[in-house]
């Protein structure tokens, strides 16, 4: 696979500490396109070894708008189903540039390890120094060890190590869309997580046309008036929640976006620093970056102040547990009660529809209505939209906002970039295979 790809699938066997590479065959891309089309295929191929499969979309890391996302595909201990979780922030991008399109992790390690993936090299590294540490300590320690603050990580915290049902795989220091208990899956394998860094290059079959068309699409996207807004509060307001701005604005610092994503879906809350400060804070950990709108809302509904909600989110991110599950299941309405209950969170969280896509994304369109009506139509649309995003590697929250990102132009750019004629029929077949 020459274009839009590293041409590599990494196969790691934790039983034997074996590391192998396979070529990404063009015929596989022709049949399954990419992202969860291929991660599902790989999961089924290695199913007997209970694998975790990490993937990237065909468009991940390109100039297509919002081409930020990677994917984790694994059997969820929460639902028993094969589920798909987006990899967001700058982490998804880094996977591809670290040298692999897909990573299959089979088996179980005898002792705790983490996978250090860099420039086409995969090292199974001893995690003794970080096992037992929380997510923040782990990411900080690995960044210090590797010598690069731009190291991107997917790590579990004590929740995953202790086998909590709601253990989450966290990205860098932040909570993730993982509602599936993938942190528990990692922990069972004695896998602390992944660290990615790479300075690779992705070749494009027709770079000029690809970039030109990307710009046309971006210009169309920028016509949307919702892009004048930033952050999580406008999203919740658009979904009908009231009082968000009044509640949260006093502690909002800034908003940031995932790779190449026109809307800033992440909001930083400053808990221990003046939120109005623009200079670099002298406090090491002044706050928390929030992308989980439902978790934030759930803490608000518990009656927590914005600062306490921020502290609760921070505690969850450090512990490596799904904050939404904590908010819903903790049975506590105070910060101390919530943070004191992290080790004992039990119960089930409803995952809508087929149950294979994370409800971290609101279950419907945001800002634009996409000409949808009726709950059934909306859910069907949402499921398909999630599948499409995760095949091509599009930031899933943004894909719910932006009608200008169409299946047609994703196929068009994917074909242009790879030199392979990818058709709507193929895409429909892949979606059917994923969604059932």
């Amino acid at each position, binding site marked *: 696979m020459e274009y839009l790809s590293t041409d590599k699938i990494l196969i790691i066997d934790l039983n034997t500490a074996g590391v192998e590479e396979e070529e990404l065959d063009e015929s596989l891309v022709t049949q399954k396109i990419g992202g969860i089309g291929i991660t599902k295929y790989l999961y089924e191929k290695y199913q007997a070894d209970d694998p975790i499969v990490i993937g990237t979309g065909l468009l991940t890391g390109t100039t297509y708008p919002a081409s930020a996302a990677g994917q984790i595909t694994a059997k969820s201990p929460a639902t028993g189903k094969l589920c798909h979780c987006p990899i967001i922030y700058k982490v998804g991008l880094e996977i591809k540039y670290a040298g692999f399109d897909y990573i299959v992790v089979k088996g179980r390690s005898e002792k705790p390890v983490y996978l250090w993936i860099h*420039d086409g090299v995969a*090292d199974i590294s001893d995690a003794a120094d970080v096992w037992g540490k929380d997510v923040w300590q782990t990411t900080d320690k690995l960044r210090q060890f590797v010598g*690069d603050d731009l190291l991107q990580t997917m790590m579990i915290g004590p929740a995953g190590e202790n086998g909590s049902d709601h253990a989450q795989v966290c990205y860098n220091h932040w909570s993730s869309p993982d509602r599936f208990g993938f942190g528990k899956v990692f922990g069972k394998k004695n896998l602390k997580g992944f660290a990615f860094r790479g300075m690779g290059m992705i070749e494009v079959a027709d770079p000029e046309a690809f970039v030109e068309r990307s710009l046309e699409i971006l210009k169309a996207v920028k016509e949307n008036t919702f892009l004048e807004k930033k952050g999580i509060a406008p999203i919740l307001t658009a979904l009908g929640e009231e009082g968000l701005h009044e509640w949260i604005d006093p502690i909002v610092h800034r908003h940031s976006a995932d790779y190449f994503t026109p809307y800033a879906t992440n909001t930083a809350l400053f808990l221990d620093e003046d939120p109005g400060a623009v200079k670099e804070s002298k406090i090491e950990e002044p706050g928390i970056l929030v992308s989980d709108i439902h978790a934030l809302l759930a803490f608000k509904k518990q009656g927590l102040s914005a600062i306490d909600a921020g502290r609760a989110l921070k505690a969850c991110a450090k512990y490596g547990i799904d904050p939404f599950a904590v908010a819903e299941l903790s049975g506590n309405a105070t910060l101390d009660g919530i943070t004191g209950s992290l080790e004992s969170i039990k119960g089930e969280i409803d995952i809508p529809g087929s149950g294979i896509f994370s409800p971290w994304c609101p279950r419907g369109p945001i800002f634009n209505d996409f000409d949808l009506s009726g709950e059934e139509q909306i859910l069907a649309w949402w499921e398909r939209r999630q599948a499409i995003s995760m095949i091509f590697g599009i930031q899933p929250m943004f894909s719910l906002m932006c009608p200008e990102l169409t299946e047609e132009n994703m196929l068009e750019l994917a074909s242009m970039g790879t030199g392979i004629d990818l058709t709507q029929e193929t895409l429909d077949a892949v979606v059917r295979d994923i969604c059932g």
Partner: protein
Amino acid sequence: MNYPKIGIYAGSGTSHSWLWFVDLFEKAGLFDLVFLDEISVQNNEIKALDVLVLSGGDTFAVAKSLGPKGGLNIKCFVEQGGTYIGSCAGAYLPMNSSKTPLDLFNFADVKITNLSKTLPLAEIKTCKFCTAYGCDFVFHPVREAVCLKTTPFFDRENCFQFEAPLYGGPGMEALDPSWVLAVYDNFTPKTNFLTSRKIAEKTLIGNAAVVRVPFGQGFFHLLGPHLEHPGFKQANQFILDIVLAKTPFLPKTKPPHTTPRMAGKEAKALLLSIRRELSNSRIVAGSLEFLPVQWLIGQKTYEPQKVRVYLESLWKRLGFLEKTKMLVVKPGLGETITRTAGRTTIELRRIKQLIDGQKESLKTAIRVFELLHTLSISFFDLYFATLSSGRGPVDGEDNLPGKSTGRPRPIGNTLTP
């Protein structure tokens, strides 16, 4: 076609500019390259060379590390017909000097025009403005691209102008005008003035930029600017013309196929371990690029970005080795490369931690640059031995695929007709 055997000095005191010579010669198809440190020069491994190249760095440190033995061997090398090409520090080295240890290398009666007892006023505060030279100062009136013009002693019939960058190299006055191959002719819009234009003109314009000093049967070529810089193709071609002007080259008596070959799993494992550590080092080096630190090592200033220069030079060549079916590897070389690359990673990570902790990192930086030299020399030994093994025997046959003539490829506008 008999190719010249070119030795590139990469020992103590050199900076990173010798890597530009590596790129230049590789692009021109001159693969018979040998990488030297001070020990190999002292052991007279330069005897079998056609050309010896010494690029930029700290002239005093180079002289000190080469010592009397190194100086004597260089003298004999040129006396017996060798071609010496020295740019910047490599140009200063063989000029007559009373300063210790430069007085071990008094081979060329050429005066430095940018030498002064009192420093002119610096327009820009930078440590790159001057270097102590005993009781005097070598000052650098300009940096970046300057315009040179060839003289009739380079080419009787054609006079050319071309640009080359000056990064601390000398303006020169030769004892014999016929030694001067090119003069500083003018400045360019990119020239960065460190003194007033008047002083810069007085120091450089009309003075020699490239001289060729006869010595025994050979020549010392002294280049003030870095004509080997990759951004200056005409200047690069000028160097090639000098290299190829010395013909015929020494016959190569040693057949190439005695060096062990490595293939299959063993080669793959070696290259993976090299890739691993180069990647680890490169990642740290990338993050150091943005840190506010400089190190004064000897007389030279080093920035973290220079670490990446070395690593990128190796990294970009790794792909070729990974695609090739057979590596040509001297015994022990693979282990040397892997071990040195691993140590480089450790030291680079240490530097990052020291800087993050606002602690002194100079000692570690010195170690890093020493390791980078060792690593580069070893890596290039492997690389060029493998690359040139694809050429076939060096006793005349040329088996390079796709190269019908086997002649070195011109890489810029040819200056000689």
